[in-house]
């Protein structure tokens, strides 16, 4: 799955579970979802739905605002989690805080 494909899958999940008052289809991948109206409760739903869809679990170290701030930030964290899950050798050291700060 390319990162674009992953982002579009994330976008669908945000649309379904994020309860945003705006059309998620119009949001840029780097757009701040909290600014767009995503609540803490909605972000939990998005997280759980992502875990279901991608068969991963967000560990406690990833539970930060920056992770769920945008479609792209979720994509980056998922990429790391998926590579860890598949046991890729020589993968990058997880850097969950790589996204922009709030």
């Amino acid at each position: 799955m390319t990162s674009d494909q992953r982002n579009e899958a994330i976008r669908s999940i945000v649309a379904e579970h994020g309860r945003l008052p705006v059309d998620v289809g119009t949001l840029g991948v780097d757009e701040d979802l909290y600014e767009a109206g995503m609540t803490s409760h909605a972000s939990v739903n998005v997280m759980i739905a992502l875990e279901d869809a991608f068969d991963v679990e967000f560990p406690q170290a990833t539970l930060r605002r920056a992770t769920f701030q945008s479609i792209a930030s979720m994509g980056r964290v998922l990429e790391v989690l998926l590579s860890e899950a598949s046991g890729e050798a020589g993968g990058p050291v997880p850097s969950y805080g790589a996204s922009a700060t709030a």
Partner: protein
Amino acid sequence: MADVLATSISSTARGEGGQALRVGVDLVAVADVGRSVDRLGDRYLARLFTDDELADCRGPRGLRLESLAARFAAKEAVLKVLRPSGSRPEWRDIEVRRRGGGWSEVRLHGEAARLAQAEGVGHVSVSLSHEAGLAVAVAAGTGRPDDTALVATAAGTDQHGGHDDAHDDAHDDAQHDHEHHDHEHHDHDHDHNERKRA
């Protein structure tokens, strides 16, 4: 009167030992919790609530959604008192239990307990309520003073000589929500629980 009250509970209020009062609040729509239970089921419940919390919320007709919602709000409110700078504790590490008298108390486990210790937060009190499809919780405790810089406010003045661009709590919740995501097991007492009908 309101101004005086606000001043006395300002973020710079100091108690003994230089501790600062911290307060957190959160508001949740009960229908949203209901929707989550319907769509995500046990994964949602198990991620957010401990077995004891679920038992506290169980009535003759099953889980009381408003009680779950109030507890979720309480966890978020407590998080705002703990103020993690890195990743936040798991929701289950902030446990809300009901006392026999109907009041709720906070129990911190794992990362939440460690965070509390790091932040100098001892007792955290919590109060829950729900009505008209909404659940709300407020948490309060003392902790080490916030030594971070104020966020720069937008330039510009209005005719009253200055526009305070600081967010009020509601605005703050909607947008920033303190998912700072980013502390021994404290048995913290009580406070006011919702005494609403089941």
